[in-house]
Structures are given as C-alpha cells and as structure tokens.
C-alpha cells in the first residue's frame, strides 16, 4: 500500500483501494467482535479480569460499538463503493490514490479515536462518543474523500443512466457528512441541556437510518442481479425505496427518547414517521426477493447470494420490530432493555453485516482475480456467524422481555440481574462464535489472496467452481 501513496494515479493497479479497504474492514470486524465477546464475558462474569481501568466494562463498551460501526461496517461500505461504483459506471475509480490515502487516514483516525475512547476520553454522548476534533477528522478525512471519489466516479461514468445502487451510494456519503457535522453541533458549539440530549439521538438515529441502512440495501441491489444474472425486478420499486428513506426515515429521531421530557408533538410525529419505515423496508425486501425468481438454487450454492438473501430476510423482523417497538403502545415496555440491544444487533450484525459480507467476498475475489480459497471455511464462517448471532439475538430478546416485566412491576433491580444471568452467558457464547467465525474469514480471505485459483480475464468469480 505504502509504495502507491506517492505513485502516479495511472500507475496504481485498479481496485487497490477497494482491496485495502476490504482487508481493513475484516480486521476491524475481528477486533470489534473480539471486544464484544470480552464485554459480554464481563456482563456474565463481573470478576473476569478486574481492578484495571483498561479492562473495565465502562471503558470498552463504546470501543466495541464504534470499532464495528466505523471500522467494520463503514469500511466495508467504502470497499463496496470503490468496487461497485466504477463497475456500474463502466469505468475506473476516479482516483485510486485518493482511495488509498482515504484508507490510510481512516485507519489512523479510527485507531486514535478508539484509543482515546478506551482511556475514557470521550464526549459522553452515545454513538457520537468521539471528542469533537476526532468528529471533525471523521467528517473531513474519512467521509469527505470517500464522497468525492464516489461522486466523481458517478459523474465520470461511461453509461447513460445511474443505477439504483449508485443513487444510494451518492446520497449516503452526502448524508453521512451532514449527519456528522449536524449531530455534533452540541460539541462544536457547546449546545447544552435537552438540545444536547436530542441531538445525540438525532445523530444516532440518522447515522443508522441515512447511512448504514440505505447503503447496506444498495449493496444488495448490486449483488443479487450481478451474481444471479437476473435484472432487478423493478426500477420503480427501487425509486419508492430511495425516496421513502429520504422523506420518512430522516425524521423519527425523537423516538429514541420517548420517555424523556421532549415536546409531545415531536414524540408523536417521530412515532408516526417511525412506522413508515415499513414502506422502504417492504419495497426493498420484495424487490430483492422477486429478483431471485428462478435462481433460488443459488441461495444454497453461492456463498454471496446466501449471505445477501440471509441479510435481506433479516430485514423483515428488523423492520417489523423497528416500526412498532417505537410506538408508545410498545415502547414503554421494552425501552432501555436488552430487547433494544438485540434489535441493534439484528440491524448491524444481522441485516447489515450479512449484506456487506457478501460484498466483501464478491469484491475481493473479483478485484484480486482469485477464486475463494475454501468453500468449507466460507460455510463455517456463514454458519458460525448465523448461529452465533441467533443465540445472541434470542437470548437478548428474552432478557429484554424479562427486564421489561421487571421494569413495569418495579421489582427490586437485583432480581432482574439474577434472572438475566443465564441469558448473559448465552449472549457471551453467541458473541464468541461470531468472533471465531470472523477469524476464520480473515484466514480464508488471506489465503485467497495468496493461493486462490486465478480467475481468467473476463470471467466473474461466481462462474468458477469452488475447489476446497
């Protein structure tokens, strides 16, 4: 990588930036889920590694969250954008050099931010935990160069139209910059009180709703037609998906604070808008599943399709939960419980991770022109990830329901802690399976780069048979 940083743009092999982003993202996924597993162990066994601030739960919890969001998910997005945007425009990435610098600065900034956070040096605002200099760094050196590369690649495309995936990519990188700068106004201009509390959740909502959810969906709009060879079922439904995300899903931020003394009109408005997430969700899921017509055997045979469709299927419970759990009728019961933790993992580790996983598998094989080293290891990755996640999700959902019951009947809190203990152990086991699956994945992709069968020019990786 370093030898290309100061090379001429034309001399850098096409796809270099995407490959480095791909491996970075897997590495951060290993780090992030490792931290998650460690944190879960501490919730199950509080005296496991104790008496040291560097291994205290309160110091590590947010490092797990941001390593996964900005390391794994967002870098996998960058990888997907740098691979898919040029492919859809029948062109090269606008600047490989900018992409490589972007990757380097991203890794440096994220490592610095997470180290500070680990030491406890943060803003005290969930999801926007980074101190404001790091927030500005994220906007200017992480999001902006990515955005410029994506926009310029779209503008310099050599096809007439812009495909669905690229609308989402182009809009997503724009919205994430806006969200970062606006959501951190309390830190940049020292806004206090309820404005600070509300903007914290405005940021948290929109970084998920306007960055992670639409960009993950955009990846599926590429992967499924590309690998199955079927054209997208409906361009029109894609339009409906895109515009309903922009119009509806940018508004329900206040539904994260249904119990706080926010204006009642704002909570009611947010709650109604929140139910409308079902519009983009149903549009997306139906569009992708209908695109699969006649190619369902690939759900079994192709790893990329299996990952994508699993993620798309998880969007169904995800959005059913998401649409309804934020209404007053349900929110009072499950607010602030493990149910929400389970839901957040369904969004990021279920829905989104499986879609990005497919993109990283497909993108790395295509760009390195090497067939996946081992299908067996790929299958192990898939099943350990899916089973580990399922154990986590089910145990946390049950724990959340117990906690909700304890909350409304106001039982002594310690009884809730005792009742949740077995589910905390299950959560740790599930999380550890996810961690192990990612180590397997990293090994598999590394071996693919080293010894994977070379894909002949003009062929796609899914056209070759698996060998191991």
């Amino acid at each position, binding site marked *: 990588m370093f030898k290309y940083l100061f090379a001429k743009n034309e001399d850098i092999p096409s796809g270099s930036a995407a490959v480095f982003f791909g491996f970075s993202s897997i590495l951060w996924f290993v780090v992030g889920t490792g931290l998650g597993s460690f944190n879960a162990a501490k919730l199950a066994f509080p005296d496991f590694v104790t008496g040291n601030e560097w291994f205290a739960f309160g110091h590590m919890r947010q490092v797990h969250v941001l390593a996964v969001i900005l390391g794994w998910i967002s870098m996998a997005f960058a990888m997907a954008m740098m691979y898919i945007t040029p492919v859809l425009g029948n062109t090269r990435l606008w600047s490989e050099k900018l992409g490589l610098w972007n990757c380097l600065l991203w890794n440096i900034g994220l490592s610095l931010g997470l180290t500070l956070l680990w030491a406890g040096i943060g803003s005290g605002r969930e999801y926007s935990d980074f101190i404001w200099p790091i927030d500005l760094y994220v906007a200017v050196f992480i999001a902006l160069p990515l955005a410029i590369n994506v926009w310029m690649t779209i503008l310099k495309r050599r096809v007439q139209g812009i495909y669905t995936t690229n609308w989402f990519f182009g809009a997503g990188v724009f919205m994430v910059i806006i969200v970062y700068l606006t959501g951190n106004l309390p830190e940049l201009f020292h806004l206090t009180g309820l404005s600070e509390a509300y903007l914290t959740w405005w940021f948290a909502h929109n970084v998920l709703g306007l960055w992670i959810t639409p960009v993950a969906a955009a990846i599926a709009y590429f992967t499924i037609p590309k690998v199955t060879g079927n054209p997208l079922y409906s361009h029109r439904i894609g339009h409906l998906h895109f515009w309903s995300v922009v119009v509806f899903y940018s508004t329900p931020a206040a539904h994260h604070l249904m119990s706080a*003394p926010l204006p009642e009109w704002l909570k009611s408005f947010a709650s109604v808008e929140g139910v409308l997430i079902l519009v983009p969700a149903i549009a997306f899921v139906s569009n992708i599943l209908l695109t699969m017509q006649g190619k369902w055997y690939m759900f079994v045979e192709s790893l990329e399709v299996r990952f994508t469709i699993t993620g798309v299927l998880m969007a169904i419970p995800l959005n059913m939960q998401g649409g309804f759990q934020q209404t007053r009728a349900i929110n009072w019961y499950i607010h602030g419980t493990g149910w929400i933790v389970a839901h957040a993992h369904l969004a990021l580790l279920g829905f989104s991770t499986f879609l990005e996983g497919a993109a990283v598998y497909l993108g790395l094989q295509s760009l390195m022109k090497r067939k996946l080293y081992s299908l067996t290891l790929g299958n192990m990755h898939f099943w350990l990830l899916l089973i580990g996640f399922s154990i986590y999700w089910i145990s946390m959902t049950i724990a959340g329901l117990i906690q909700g019951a304890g909350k409304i009947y106001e039982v002594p809190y310690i009884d809730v802690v005792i009742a949740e203990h077995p589910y905390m152990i299950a959560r740790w086991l599930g999380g550890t399976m996810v961690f192990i699956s990612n180590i397997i994945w990293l090994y598999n992709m590394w071996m693919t780069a080293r010894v994977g069968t070379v894909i002949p020019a003009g062929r796609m990786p899914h056209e070759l048979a698996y060998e191991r």
Partner: protein
Amino acid sequence: MNFREYKIGARMFGFCLGGSMCITLLMPSFDFRSANSTEVALDKQLSAGWETGWNVYDPLMLGKNKPLKVLLKADPKTGEAFKEAKFAYVYNPGTPMPNAADHPGNLGGTVETLSREKGKITEFNKATGAVYLIQKDGDSLYVENATATKGWMPSDVMGKAADGDIEQVGKGKTMFVREGCWWCHTLLPEETQDWQVFGAPPYLGDFNGESPTAFGSDRKAPDLLHVGSRNSSKEWMMLHFFNPRLVQPHSIMPRFDYMWGDKDANGQAIDYNKWRAEYNEYHEGKRANPPEVPAYAKDSEIRSLIDFMLSLK
C-alpha cells in the same frame, strides 16, 4: 448528469432533506429555548460547571478546572451565622464559568431576567473566580453572582469551609462520564413507570445548561437520577465502589477500586494484590470476613464520584 430527471431529483432530494431537518431540528429548538430552568437544572449546571465531557480545560478528563459545591453555615464576609445553611458554588480563579454566565439565554424566561438584573450573572471575571448562589424572589428562581453582588471571593468561602462541607460534584460528574457509569445506569426514570422505586421522571426545564446529559439508553442497572435520596450512606457507597460484591453478592457491576489511587486517607500505600488475595480467600470460604476496604483520600477520584452520587437527590 445528462438527464433532466437527475436535476429535478437532486433538487427534490435537497428539498426533502431540508424539510426533514427543518421539522426535526429547527422546530424543536423553539420548544427547547422556551424551557425555563428549574431549581434542579440550576443546581446541576452550577455544581457541574461548564462541561463534564471532554473539553480543552480538562483534556485528560481528570476533573480539572471544575467548580466546588460548598455548604455555607455563615456569611463568609461577616461571619454572621445563617438561619438555614445554604449551598454556594465556588468557581476558583481560572475555572471556566457555568453556561448561565456567558449564555444567560440558556436559563430561560424570568430566571434569565432576574439573574441578569438582580443576580448580576454576566458580571464575572474568570481570572478572579466567582461564587454563585441559587436565590428565590417570591416564586421565581434566579442565580446570584455573590462575587459581584456581595463581594464574596472564592478564597473567602474556601478559607472557612471544612472538608466535610465541600462536594466535588463537577469532578465527580466527569468521572461518571469517563468511567462509563452511564452505559448501565440511566439518569432518566421513565414517565410510564419507575415512579415508586427510581422516583419522578425529570421535567422539561431540568436540563438547561447541562452537558453532557448522559441519559443512558441501555439500562443494565438501577436508575441513578435520584439515588442520593434513596441511599445517602458514604460508607455503603465506599464498599460498593471498591467491590460491589461486598454489599450485593449478585451485582454484575465492575470493581472501581482503581479509583482509590495509590494512597489511602492516612497516606499509606494501598496493597491491592494483598486485598484481592484476601478477598479471594473470603470468597472461597477460607476467611470469615472480607478484608477492610481502605478509606479513600480526600483528593482521590472516588471521593468526587461519591460526592456526585450523593448530590443526585
């Protein structure tokens, strides 16, 4: 961008996102601005100070440059005893002033007017410090800058205050943020339940000037907004922070023994390894009693955190 549709689309996109930000950011900001500070909010912002998350005055989050909340029993100038003891918020020279001082608009309504006119809140000098009081005028509250109105200097107040009357709330709130207490303990009893055990939910004006509010979202432990009213025992807090399993065998809270620092209240070095070994023996049933928890030094981090806990009434 060769198609007319893309130009229309880009404009529509800007219109939609702008409209959404207008509804979700601009419109609520009018409501937030109209909130008048309650007494809770005044106490919180004066005792915690300008900012308790990361800021340039406390870059390592050690609780530097924070105000002190001091219980006054007599007038620090004349020595005349008060009928009722009251709290003064002491900003020693160089400490950043509370948000109310440079942005009185945050206080809202009559609180702002009275604080400006009667309380002389804007007449402060950071270099010499200031002493603030919460005062009542009939039913209305306001903040008084006693340095401007009465000539009370921080040194006057601090010179007469016993250590037991000083609460390091601002430093304690910084510890609360830095140590991530709020990842498990919320500061937000919910409106639909929680009244009996965790107490009343906060009001609209309870947060003016506070930053960060640190509500917490993922409750894995009791809400702490009113913890000082439920349990005001420093001894219990001390045992519980050192090792929560001493007072609550089923607790999953981490140990915060490292916040005691190197030395105890008598200046003796704390032997953590010995303590942990003895505790393990107790845990395994080889000892009848757990080892004694060392008393914390008065400038230790844990002292400020306990002060902050007890201030949450």
